[in-house]
């Protein structure tokens, strides 16, 4: 009976994973197929002759630059959002700055659909020459990540024992010193998880990039959308670029496995 239940549990678990991972598998499989095999009907379940030609094309065409752009934008904006966000969270936790109003203001940022913000923002950006620049996009992504970072960091900072801070202050530490030397190290793991999620969200972003980037800082998500056209659907490039876009996220999630549940849920739950 127990054995049966165990077997059943594993069977269900595996089945569920297969269902949810199949589309991901399919994307990988297509990216390794030869072009003529991609356009075979009915489709082949696995690449008969796996090869990296579809990826090589991305490099020779220079399309892979869009991955670098995404990396730069997501990386820089994450650093900035973490800096500004954890400071802000500390202000909220220790000084109750802004009280209810600040909390409402932060929630409000998550409230409106991005399309509502990006439309007026585009006109302003284009006017000031900020569209399709690294600076402009990093600013945008920083703002995009901030409410989330503050929300998350607030949860982690609240867990830092007040007594530790008090005793440090008594020892003559400045308030910022306390933040820097006591609070941050304690909340390190949680903040790191926060940063990873902030990075992933910016990395995945599409609408802002679609509107704001053209060439100089075009992200990989926009590049993929350009492969779909009335002329043609470049499945080989779409799949290869998508795989390149998924790999960093997969690695991060694998590394962050311990914080995955906590990271996702804390950000959502603590309020």
């Amino acid at each position, binding site marked *: 009976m127990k054995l049966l239940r165990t077997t059943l549990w594993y069977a269900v678990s595996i089945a569920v994973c297969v269902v949810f991972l199949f589309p991901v598998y399919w*994307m990988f499989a297509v990216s390794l197929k030869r072009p003529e095999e991609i356009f075979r009907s009915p489709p082949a379940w696995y690449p008969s002759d796996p090869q990296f030609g579809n990826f090589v094309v991305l490099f020779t065409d220079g399309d892979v630059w869009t991955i670098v752009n995404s990396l730069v934008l997501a990386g820089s904006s994450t650093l900035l959002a973490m800096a500004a966000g954890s400071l802000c969270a500390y*202000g909220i936790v220790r*000084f109750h700055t802004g009280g209810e109003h600040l909390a409402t203001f932060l929630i409000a940022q998550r409230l409106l659909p991005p399309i509502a913000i990006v439309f007026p923002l585009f006109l302003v950006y284009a006017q000031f020459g900020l569209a399709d620049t690294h600076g402009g996009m990093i600013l945008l992504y920083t703002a995009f990540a901030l409410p989330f970072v503050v929300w998350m960091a607030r949860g982690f900072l609240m867990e830092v024992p007040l007594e530790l801070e008090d005793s440090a202050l008594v020892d003559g530490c400045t*308030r910022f010193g306390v933040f820097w030397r006591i609070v941050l190290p304690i909340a390190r793991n949680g903040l790191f998880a926060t940063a990873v999620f902030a990075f992933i969200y910016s990395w995945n972003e599409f609408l802002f990039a679609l509107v704001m980037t053209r060439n100089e800082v075009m992200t990989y998500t926009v590049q993929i959308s350009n492969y779909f056209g009335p002329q043609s659907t470049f499945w080989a490039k779409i799949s290869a670029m998508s795989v390149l876009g998924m790999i960093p996220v997969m690695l991060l999630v694998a590394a962050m496995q311990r914080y995955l549940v906590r990271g996702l849920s804390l950000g959502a739950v603590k309020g």
Partner: protein
Amino acid sequence: MSPAAVAGTVAPPRAPSHAGGTRAAGVAYVAPAVFVLVLVGLLPFLWSIWVSFLNLAGSTRSGDFVGLANYQKLLSDTKLWAALGRTFLIMAVALPVQLVLGMLLALHFQAERPGKKLFVALLALPAVISPMVAGSMWRLMFDHRFGPVNQMISAFTEKPVVLLWVVKGSLPFWSIVVAEVWQWTPFMFIILLAAIANVDRDQMQAAALDGAHRRHVFWYVVLPAIRPVLIIAVLIRALDLFRLFDVVWQLTKGGPGNRTETISVYMYIQGFQGFQTSYVAAIVVVLAIVLSSVLMLALRRVRLDR
């Protein structure tokens, strides 16, 4: 001197406490974040309010004040209301399915068995992939010739099936729902998994000892305990579904015709392809009012519950 250093000197060193006294000092801490959010979030919104009373559009850029004309147009814009209705319809279908599937998975994975962590990590994957990539993925899955979905269906029906997922009848709607459910069920699952794991074990065991059926334990012990988490998770997903854009853009671009236009897609088309600057601004303002009232009500309920 950095703002933080200023804060350090201003804050009375011996009176750090949760409440009172040091609010002014906190301002320096929150200032950078608030500055960025005002610049990139609030100002564009205020600008939208102003523009919604003008008649900025395409080549007619006179910018005259037209009062509530854009709002009047909005009331009689059937395509707008259809898009809004469709957005809620997708929400009404996808959200309960995500919730129930996520809950079932969370209950299933309460068991502590070797390999559980691996399963959980694998299942989390869809939720961290770019929605845009997910949309492309499902476009590939649903391709009637080169995609596997029709082939799988054919295997069941034992004759070749050619379903035009992103084209025919109500299929485009369902392909969007499938992609949504696939991507965000894992999100629900992860959150509920943690929430259920946090439910007081003693209480559950006590209930079980009292002879309560497992189903009753779930309904009367687990569910009430995770209710706040549940509500917030649903709220987050509802907001995300409300802004649904990426997946639709990749699968159908709102077509065929206008049949899968969500509110975000509609606004994109009006704003960036139709140049209806002022009109889109008016939609933004109305959405903001509606959404904030709904959210305030919802949050108030959650707080009262606690």
